[in-house]
C-alpha cells in the first residue's frame, strides 16, 4: 500500500510537472521489461497465494524470494541509467541482503508485529511463523542485519498501519523519482515527439 502510494504520487508529480512545463508526459522506457514479469511470477505463488502453502515445500518457498529478487536485480541493473533507478537498486540490495541472511523471508519482531492491525501480544507470537506476504516473526537477537528488517512503523494515519524496512524507503523514493522525473536528455513537445 505505501509503495503503491509512492508510485501514485510520483505519477501525479510527473504529470503535474509536464503540464506546468507545457510538454507531454513520458513514462520511463524500460529495457527487458519481461524480466519484471518473470521475477514477479514466483512471488505470486509463495507470497500472494495462500493456497500454495499446501503444495510448495517450505525450503522451495524460502528460496523463491531471493531468486525473484535476483532476477529483479538484473532488471534494475539493465535500467540503471533511468533517473531514480539507482535509488531502487539500493533498496533492492538492502532488502535482498536481509531476506537472504534470514532464511528467505523479511524478518519482523514480535513487538513490531503486535502493533500492526490484528496483531497479538508479543509473548503470544510464535517465533518462526510467517506473517503476511513476505515476513517471518523473529526475535531481534536472532535476526541477522536487524537494522535492515521491517522494524519501522508508519504513523497510524487513516486507520492504516504498516511496518517497513530501510530498503522499502529507498524503493518508494526511487519509484517516485522514476515517475516524477522525465528520462534524462529527452524533452518532448505536446505532440509527444522527442528531441534531445
Amino acid at each position, binding site marked *: 500500500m*505505501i509503495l503503491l502510494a509512492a*508510485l501514485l504520487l510520483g505519477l501525479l508529480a510527473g504529470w503535474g510537472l509536464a503540464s506546468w512545463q507545457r510538454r*507531454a508526459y513520458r513514462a520511463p522506457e524500460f529495457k527487458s521489461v519481461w524480466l519484471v514479469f518473470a521475477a514477479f511470477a514466483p512471488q505470486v505463488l509463495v507470497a*500472494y497465494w495462500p493456497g500454495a502453502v499446501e503444495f510448495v515445500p517450505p525450503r522451495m518457498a524460502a528460496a523463491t524470494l531471493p531468486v525473484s529478487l535476483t532476477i529483479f536485480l538484473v532488471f534494475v541493473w539493465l535500467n540503471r541509467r533511468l533517473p531514480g533507478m539507482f535509488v531502487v537498486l539500493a533498496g533492492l540490495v538492502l532488502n535482498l541482503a536481509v531476506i537472504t541472511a534470514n532464511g528467505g523471508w523479511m524478518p519482523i519482531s514480535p513487538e513490531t508485529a503486535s502493533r500492526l492491525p490484528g496483531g497479538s501480544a508479543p509473548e503470544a507470537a510464535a517465533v518462526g511463523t510467517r506473517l503476511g506476504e513476505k515476513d517471518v516473526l523473529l526475535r531481534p537477537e536472532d535476526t541477522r542485519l536487524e537494522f535492515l528488517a521491517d522494524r519501522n512503523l508508519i504513523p497510524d494515519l487513516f486507520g492504516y498501519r504498516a511496518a517497513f524496512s530501510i530498503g522499502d524507503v529507498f524503493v518508494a523514493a526511487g519509484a517516485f523519482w522514476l515517475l516524477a522525473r522525465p528520462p534524462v536528455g529527452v524533452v518532448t513537445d505536446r505532440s509527444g515527439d522527442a528531441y534531445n
Partner: protein
Amino acid sequence: MNSKLSKLMLLTSRINRQHLQLLVAILALVLMVLGIGAPSDGGGATRIRF
C-alpha cells in the same frame, strides 16, 4: 480526404503507442515495487510454522 484520414490514423497510432507504453511502464513499476519492497501490514492469510 485521404490526407485527413492518414493524419487521423497517425494520431490514433501515436496515442495508442503512447498509452500502451505508459500502461506497460506503470504495470512494470507496480510489479517491481511490490516485488522488491517488503512492507507488512499484518494482512494476508499466511501463518506457517517452520
